[in-house]
């Protein structure tokens, strides 16, 4: 009996001694990620990018590409390279670019963002506030930050299936990579939630997941429709806002003769699975759907009268929303989407790189007044914007949690 206790004590001591070694392992892994990914990093105007192939394909955010004026980028050794646009996904905020005549370039590999668990350490690499240009030598060091996965499958408007992280992400990190400690690319960082309307990290950053990017990769490479890859839609399918928390999403009205009807959907069906994802709520379904391109073939599992069946669906093109449409006349652009909620008219999207984002507006903000008039419907906001001119200043009164604030924002020309 004594021997057993000796062995047990010995094993526990060994386990205890293993403690500092594991912490050193994290340090070694972070250093290894920084060493491997640094050379694959692309410095782009005011933002970041990451190489994904030896011949020079690289990813960044669409809103980073919108701002650059010359088609050139800089690599970690300070070298300037010529780049070209391959395809863009403005809704999903992804751009596929390429270094011209790229050969034998260092690149990173995709990881599986669907396998991420909350709490897993992740590393963000970017160029916040352009700090990499403060070097004494020609080579450029991007900024490396460490954090964890704070949440997965976050629905943040157009970032409909986002990874949330507390790794420090600031302006300039946009378009840059998010890695797990094995050096695999699990996301592209692009948005932050900010405090007091200051565009500085406050512990909440959002990344577009690699699972979404991989679905768009081939359509982007093929150039999309005039360079744009549209998102997917099931035409004729309306989703009920009925709360079925944890159970599924209820199908609402089905348009007669539509693709949804032909695919087999019926009003009242309970959608429980979309492709590889379980569906527990209507918001989750919209979030998943927002992460697929037009043309994607997916299997959807529905429950009808306690019987499960699988519907094979090919997603069609989602048309540009009224906010994104070009109506010919130059008009003012703010960069928000709004929807009716129980609390009033709330912002449901803030496009990156817009006056709305710069002013610190956030998804969830309830708009109380727009240019002095009380806001009772989404149209109260949309109609004012449609009639506006670039350079107009709008005054918005918003409520966020218990705080009410008045903000004046100058519009910019509509980018349509």
């Amino acid at each position, binding site marked *: 009996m004594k021997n057993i206790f000796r062995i047990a004590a010995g094993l526990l001591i060994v386990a205890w001694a293993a403690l*500092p070694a594991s*912490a050193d392992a994290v340090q070694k892994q972070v250093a290894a990620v920084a060493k491997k990914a640094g050379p694959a990093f692309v410095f782009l105007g005011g933002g970041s990018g990451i190489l994904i192939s030896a011949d020079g394909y690289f990813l960044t955010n669409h809103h980073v590409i919108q701002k*650059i004026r010359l088609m050139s980028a800089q690599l970690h050794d300070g070298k300037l390279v010529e780049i070209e646009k391959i395809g863009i996904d403005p809704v999903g905020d992804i751009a596929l670019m390429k270094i011209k005549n790229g050969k034998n370039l260092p690149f990173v590999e995709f990881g599986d963002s669907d396998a991420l668990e909350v709490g897993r350490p992740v590393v963000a690499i970017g160029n*916040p506030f352009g*700090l990499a240009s403060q070097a004494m030598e020609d080579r450029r060091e991007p900024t490396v930050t460490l954090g964890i996965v704070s949440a997965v499958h976050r629905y943040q408007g157009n970032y409909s299936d986002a990874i949330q992280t507390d790794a420090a992400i600031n302006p300039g990190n946009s378009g840059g990579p998010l890695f797990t400690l094995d050096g695999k690319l699990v996301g592209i960082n692009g948005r932050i939630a900010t405090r007091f309307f200051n565009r500085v990290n406050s512990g909440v950053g959002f990344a577009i997941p690699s699972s979404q990017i991989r679905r768009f990769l081939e359509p982007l490479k093929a150039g999309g429709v005039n360079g744009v890859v549209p998102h997917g839609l099931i035409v004729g399918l309306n989703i009920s806002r009925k709360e079925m928390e944890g159970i599924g999403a209820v199908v609402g009205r089905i348009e007669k003769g539509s693709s949804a009807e032909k695919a087999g959907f019926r009003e009242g069906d309970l959608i429980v699975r979309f492709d590889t994802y379980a569906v527990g709520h209507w918001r989750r379904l919209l979030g998943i759907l927002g992460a697929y391109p037009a043309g994607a073939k997916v299997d959807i599992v529905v429950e009808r009268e306690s019987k499960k069946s699988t519907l094979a669906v090919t997603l069609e093109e989602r048309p540009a929303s009224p906010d994104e449409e070009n109506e010919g006349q130059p008009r003012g652009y703010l960069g928000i989407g709004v929807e009716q909620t129980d609390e009033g008219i709330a912002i449901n999207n803030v496009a990156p790189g817009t006056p709305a984002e710069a002013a610190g507006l956030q998804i969830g903000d309830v708009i109380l007044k727009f240019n002095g008039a009380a806001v009772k419907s989404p149209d109260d906001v949309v109609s004012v914007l449609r009639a506006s001119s670039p350079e107009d200043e709008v005054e918005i009164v918003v409520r966020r949690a218990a705080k009410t604030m008045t903000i004046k924002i100058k519009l910019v020309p509509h980018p349509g």
Partner: protein
Amino acid sequence: MAMRAMMILALFLPALGIAADAGSNPTGGWQTVVAKVAPSVVSIIVERDPEPPVEEPQPEDPEQEGPKIPNIFAERSTAPVSGTIVGAEGEILTTHFNILRAKKIVVRLADGRRFNATIKGYSARKDLALLKIDAKGLPVLPRKKGAVLEIGAVVAAVGRNSDNSPSVNAGIVSATDRMYGQAIQTDARLNYANVGGPLVDREGNLVGVTCNVTTSTSSRWGPNSGIGFAVPCAMLDKVIPMLKSGVNEGKPGYLGVFANPDAVADAGAVIADVHPGSAAATGGLKAGDAIVGFEGKPIANFDQLRRAIINKMVGDKVELIVKRTTDEKSETLVVKITLGERP
């Protein structure tokens, strides 16, 4: 016997699990390190007259006008700040911002003893200040022999709270060459209370002294943003003797020109815009001008211009060679400018 072996394994496995969990969190398990390091970290209590309000942030890029965002970091905290013991005979390093406009400085040691402090020397440009107190035998932090700082290294910023208890904020080294070789970058959270204290590694060795948390609007990231800086040991070894000899270094000279972010290679430092009220504006530089020479050095791009200016001080007179193209004509001008402060 097999049953007993199974029981031992059953005891062992959860212990391994706990060990692995605690170890895999780089920001956990700092208690021993803090206990080792804390005696070298001091609290600094500064008395000063009420300060003038900080100016509203100027847009860095005048083209980029947006809504006026109030500078919420404009007010300095009145709570004690932190410092690092760098000499056993009472030499304390802290930041220049921490002691700016001080009327009286009191240093409080780990054991609670208070000492009046005098400023031996400071550098506004490096944001460091060396204080002296009348104490002996103070503990100085060890250095790691032959240390090569690695991006990704786990570090912690140690400071003192207003009740004199130590604080620790862990993070990693984010970059090793910032502020033109003068500082390293870390995502360990820095704030008005812990800045001036040491940045240490997991063994309690000194890596640097944290700096650059100010109310200055040119540090757009502010405190607690995950963007922080520290002067590394190698640079401290150059700066501390300079400060000890009584040198007071002012602010870096500021020219006031903005670069076009999409640079054309080798066209000189092409100016996209001039900061109103700056030395460049007074000197007559215009948007579109290309600076091709600075104090006898050829300038091929903005990076080279920045590095050429980096060691200049406010009041330095410099000579620029500028290429100005108007319509068809291209002329080369010699422009003499006195560098000023950042407006």
